[in-house]
């Protein structure tokens, strides 16, 4: 932000440079170090050969001879690629399902203002506050009764329970910021509500759609307890569950492949996030502010 440089508003020039170092820069560096260290450690371990991993006389912060053996083991000797594919399918489909239903719901609540729209909006907000850890036991029973147990469809249909409330709530805020006048003009020109939604509201709400989509995608990628409860066969597991339940065998922990699995499983969300940081932050803070 270049405009901050000559902004008259800040009073930061009142502080001397050494004082700024002690009170601001050093604490920030410590925070960043602590928050990022586990990622450094994850990467370090993933590329370190076993001999170095188990040798405690060596400096553990660096690798003498990096190796890809953990990755090759992971990709060729475990069902890891299948887990990646499952996670991708489940996340993408449930995100799209949730977005589509949330757009309709948010438009109905915020713009059509049907009778009972306000209580419905409130109910959606409360639905967002219901945590998965009190739902998973009865949901397991429901999933079993519907014959969905141990299938990707179980996850695709249950993830929207936390995605729809979030997306609807976020999109309601976005729709609220679009002026009514646009819609009224279109109505006078004879557009139907459906045309207004698809040709006026949605194009204007694209930033909101991206925020909601990115957020929903990361939430479903990170989901754990439903995937752990509703899935039992190895080939339909998701990455977080697969890594935790199948790569840990017996008392000998294969730290290399485990860390390689964690690294590969984190990369897709990290990459997507890095492209859409601003949308992500606005989605997060937008949901909190309302």
């Amino acid at each position: 932000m270049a405009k901050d440089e000559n902004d008259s508003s800040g009073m930061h020039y009142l502080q001397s440079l050494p004082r700024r170092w002690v009170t601001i820069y050093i604490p920030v560096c410590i925070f960043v170090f602590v928050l990022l260290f586990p990622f450094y450690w994850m990467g370090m371990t993933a590329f370190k050969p076993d001999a170095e991993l188990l040798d405690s006389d060596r400096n553990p912060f660096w690798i003498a001879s990096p190796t890809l053996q953990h990755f090759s083991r992971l990709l060729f000797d475990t069902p890891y690629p299948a887990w990646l594919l499952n996670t991708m399918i489940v996340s993408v489909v449930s995100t799209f399902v949730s977005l589509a239903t949330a757009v309709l719901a948010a438009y109905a609540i915020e713009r059509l203002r049907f009778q009972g729209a306000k209580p419905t909006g409130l109910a959606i907000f409360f639905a967002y506050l219901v945590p998965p850890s009190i739902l998973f036991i009865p949901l397991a029973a429901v999933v079993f009764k519907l014959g969905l147990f141990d299938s990707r469809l179980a996850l695709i249909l249950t993830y929207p329970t936390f995605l729809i409330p979030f997306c609807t709530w976020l999109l309601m805020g976005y729709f609220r910021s679009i002026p009514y006048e646009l819609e009224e003009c279109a109505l006078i020109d004879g557009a139907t509500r459906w045309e207004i939604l698809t040709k006026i509201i949605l194009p204007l709400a694209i930033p909101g759609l991206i925020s909601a989509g990115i957020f929903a995608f990361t939430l479903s990628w990170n989901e754990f307890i439903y995937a752990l409860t509703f899935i039992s066969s190895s080939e339909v597991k998701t990455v977080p569950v697969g890594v935790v339940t199948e790569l840990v065998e017996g008392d000998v922990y294969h730290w290399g492949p485990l860390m390689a699995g964690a690294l590969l499983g984190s990369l897709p969300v990290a990459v997507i996030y890095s492209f859409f940081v601003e949308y992500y932050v606005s989605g997060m803070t937008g949901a909190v502010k309302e």
Partner: protein
Amino acid sequence: MLAKIQNNRNLLGYAFMVPAAFLLLVFLTYPLGLGVWLGFTDTKIGRAGSFIGFENYEFLFGDSVARLSLFNTVFYTVVASILKFGLGLWLALLLNKHLPFKTFFRAVILLPWIVPTALSAIVFWWIYDSQFSVISWVLIRLGLIDSYINFLGDPWNARLSTIAANVWRGIPFVAISLLAGLQTISPSLYEAAAIDGATPWQQFRNITLPMLTPIIAVVMTFSVLFTFTDFQLIYVLTRGGPLNATHLMATLSFQRAISGGALGEGAALAIAMVPFLLAAILFSYFGLQRRAWQQGGDR
């Protein structure tokens, strides 16, 4: 007919609500009710139960492991939430200062929150390993300790280690949300305060904190909610051990219901979390109300 529906707000509104309502009613509202019902039955996996009234709750109340899990959950939530709030607010205040590479810092700091918790928990598991822990390695090299710390093997060490991992993951959310709140505070307030001779602490106490209260209330409600119902971190790091010292109500209900097969008992344990969550939500709601009134708002 179609034209009529398209011009009727109510009909069209209900039509638009159908997909969301269907998914939420079948997979959220119904299971929630079913969970309450299961809590009053002795259902096991593969066997339909019958109504037994409050027996599950009575049993859990007398069960020392369940009581320990309640204590653990409250301890975990209180300590982790206070730490997340304190450190998160501090980080937000730091980032709100004029920093070089501010956008970069902000982006990087959110990483712990983006990455799947189960996967970052595995990294913490490796960092806490009893034989190869890097923390122990550094402390030994610095001469501060003589033997490797048993992070996850000792009850209190395990509690504190899991809290540390939870705080690590929670700080970014608190910090970035509060930062968004800080950025909406007009700098002229601080200038006026500085001219009146207010110290930095007075400025923080009398400007920053009151202006930030509404966002703090919401952020901390979410944070408390997520911490209280946390599952993945404990499941990956300790599975509730050692000696059930880190069992939270969520992990214990998973163990009883899914691993142990006692669906009714597990459901009762999960439902027992609801009063606590309601208390947290109401607390934040009334905190918000007070602020709206103070600002002269009528929302």
